């Protein structure tokens, strides 16, 4: 409490501390330099903490000097990061999609099977080829019968596709005038009233419009996200963290990260019969973060009440949040 803090970002202090450490190793390091470093350290605890941390790390690398004389100690190695995104989707489940299968929300109409979930539902459909489709709330998909080329239509809602890749028989997901062709993939497709969003999680997929209105197909890579609205198609890059939040429904929770109350309410309302209503626009613009069970409206409202000091009232099937 005694010292001013947080004026400068941690990485900036780290950079300065590292510069000091580097200079300290130089042969022309003298008394004056020593005094200047001491003064810098005395200035703030932030400087000391950063310097101590880097000094310890750097001194640990002295150990590699024992390798002196050993030939080429460093070998190129692929990092764990690349391994994570490597191919190989191991799904062992094989369940035949045939007339005999009775699936809760499935029915067949000759050429295709339809699967659906109700409001708040969450089901996993396993296809005979080892692929797997996870359906979020209020969702309808149709799967073409085995004889046909592999094809799935997302008619409504949101689904997470984990495709067993077969180069000879690529799987296509059709939705709202667009086509997503799997090139060995896990991806998420979500339809809202006026927009379609495809997020690629692993592998690759090609995104293209069915009638060729979009100038050229795009190959999506992990972290890529496409948003298509009536106004056109846009792309963005999602961080691993944001992607994780987007997929949180697969764990039956909703994760918010600097989400406006209006958007958080909209999310909850996708899953529950009981609806959250935000009374005025100032409240709707407040930001929230955190993880809640998807049916945890009451918990959420409680937190808004105690932490943001908002008023919560229950009117029929609605939970109204206001100032």
């Amino acid at each position, binding site marked *: *409490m*005694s010292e001013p*803090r*947080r004026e400068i*970002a*941690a*990485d900036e*202090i*780290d*950079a300065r501390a*590292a*510069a000091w*450490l*580097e*200079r300290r*190793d*130089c042969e022309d390091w003298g008394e004056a330099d020593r005094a200047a470093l001491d003064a810098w350290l005395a200035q703030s*605890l*932030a400087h*000391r*903490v*950063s310097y*101590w*941390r*880097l000094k*310890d*790390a*750097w001194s*640990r*690398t*002295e*150990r*590699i*000097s*024992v*390798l*002196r004389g050993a030939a080429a*100690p*460093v*070998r190129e*190695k692929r*990092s*764990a*990061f690349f391994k994570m995104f490597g191919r190989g989707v191991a799904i062992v489940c094989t369940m035949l999609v045939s007339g005999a299968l009775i699936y809760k929300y499935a029915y067949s109409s000759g050429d295709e099977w339809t699967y659906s979930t109700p409001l708040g539902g969450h089901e996993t459909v396993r296809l005979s080829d080892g692929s797997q489709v996870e359906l979020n709330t209020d969702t309808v998909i149709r799967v073409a019968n085995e004889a046909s080329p592999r094809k799935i239509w997302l008619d409504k809602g949101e689904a997470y596709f984990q495709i067993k890749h077969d180069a000879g028989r690529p799987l296509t997901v059709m939705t709202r005038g667009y086509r997503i062709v799997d090139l060995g993939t896990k991806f998420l497709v979500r339809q809202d009233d006026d927009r379609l969003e495809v997020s690629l999680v692993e592998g690759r997929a090609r995104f293209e419009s069915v009638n060729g209105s979009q100038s050229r197909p795009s190959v999506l890579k992990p972290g890529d996200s496409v948003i298509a609205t009536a106004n056109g198609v846009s792309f963005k890059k999602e961080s691993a*963290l944001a992607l994780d*939040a987007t997929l949180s429904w697969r764990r039956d929770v909703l*994760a*918010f*990260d*600097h989400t406006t109350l209006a958007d958080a309410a909209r999310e909850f309302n996708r899953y529950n019969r009981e609806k959250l209503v935000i009374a005025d626009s100032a409240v709707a613009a*407040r*930001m*929230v*973060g*955190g*993880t*809640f069970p998807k049916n945890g409206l009451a918990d959420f409202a409680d*937190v808004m009440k105690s*932490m*943001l000091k908002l008023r919560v009232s229950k009117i029929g099937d609605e939970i109204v949040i206001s100032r």
Partner: protein
Amino acid sequence: MTDTKDHRENLQAPLTEAEVEAWFVREVLPLEAILMQYLRHNWRDASGFEDLRQEIYMRVCEAAYKNPPERTRAFVFTTARNLLITRGKRAHVVPIDAVADVDMLGIAADEPGADRKLIAREELRRVKNAVEQLPPRYREVVLLRRIEGLSRREIAQRLGLAEATVAEYLANAMTSLARILYRETAGGAHE
């Protein structure tokens, strides 16, 4: 490094600079990997992680000057939790997970420095591994400095770079190394 027994006997005596540094390096830094996990789990704004970490370190060191906490682990994580809660209020973001009990994270057990008690060979493997993970240009200057023992000027001559560039590479390598070394848990690297 000072003798730990001495601290225990006069807990009330304020610590010297060198003692706080030794305590910080010995007991707090080995917690960095799990602390970052905790931050990642409880705070969704990734851009703020390093600043939060720094702030937590400052708070625990500030306390240590007066009196080093007996249970460092519990103290570090309580500090982290409290910081997330006050930050959450200030940013009008409620980090709901942060309210969860620290004990639930299974990090309450206090074994000071256990993570650091590594045999020399294991430590060498770790450091080598960390150096291997550096971007090639940084790795090169680190190896020339540490293995060949070259000075900044000699490295500059060898690689045909300006001395200022070498200094910059070395400094960047140092911050990257700290990240790699402290974020790596006993099992292996992540991030």
